[in-house]
């Protein structure tokens, strides 16, 4: 992993089109501004990871569709 130290308002350039700027530094929070082309997906990593996890789990369960149908039926009979 490349590690760089930056001060407030300093920037990091990634490739041709991406620039990160350190906008604010507080004790436990760093605010980063990101300039990048629109087609580049930028997300907090845990947000992306949560989506991946739910997708993978769902795909792993697809053989058990009967269980979903059964649970659904149970809830909707009440």
């Amino acid at each position, binding site marked *: 992993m490349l590690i760089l130290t930056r001060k407030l308002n300093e920037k990091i350039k990634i490739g041709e089109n991406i620039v990160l700027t350190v906008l604010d530094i507080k004790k436990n929070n760093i605010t980063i501004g990101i300039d990048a082309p629109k087609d580049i997906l930028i997300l907090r990593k845990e*947000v992306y990871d*949560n*989506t991946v996890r739910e997708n993978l*789990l*769902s*795909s792993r369960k*697809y053989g058990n569709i009967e*269980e979903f*149908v059964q649970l659904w039926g149970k809830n909707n009979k009440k």
Partner: protein
Amino acid sequence: MKKINTKKFGEIEIDEKNIITMPKGLPGFSGYNQYVILDREDIKPFCWFQSIEIPEIALIVMSPYIFKNDYKVDLDLLIKDMNWDKEDKEDLEVYVVINIKEKEKEKTITANLLSPIVVNTKKLEAVQFINANPEDRDLYYYPVK
């Protein structure tokens, strides 16, 4: 018609006109961008979001409006993001990814309301639209009832 392999039903025939491309891919399954929605009477209200390339990739999905009629997706932002036409709005179908979570031996069906899959049935494209600023992380596991 095109034959595809599914893990649940083996080889099935699908209409090529129903093949959906995901130009930005599906998170967790990079490299596999072609899907088809399989719905069957006996699994309603669920459907499979089935890869036509890999039989083992098939997410269980459903319409969120069946259990949450005030569910909102920012379709205008999504249309802009995908370079779709504003007129396509009526041709968009929204699905959410479904799971079962077990807590204290009680099983609940849950839906990921923070990353809906939106299908443009006119352009035959789809995207999983990830909410970048989730206010409530429990919405990854919204109970479906």
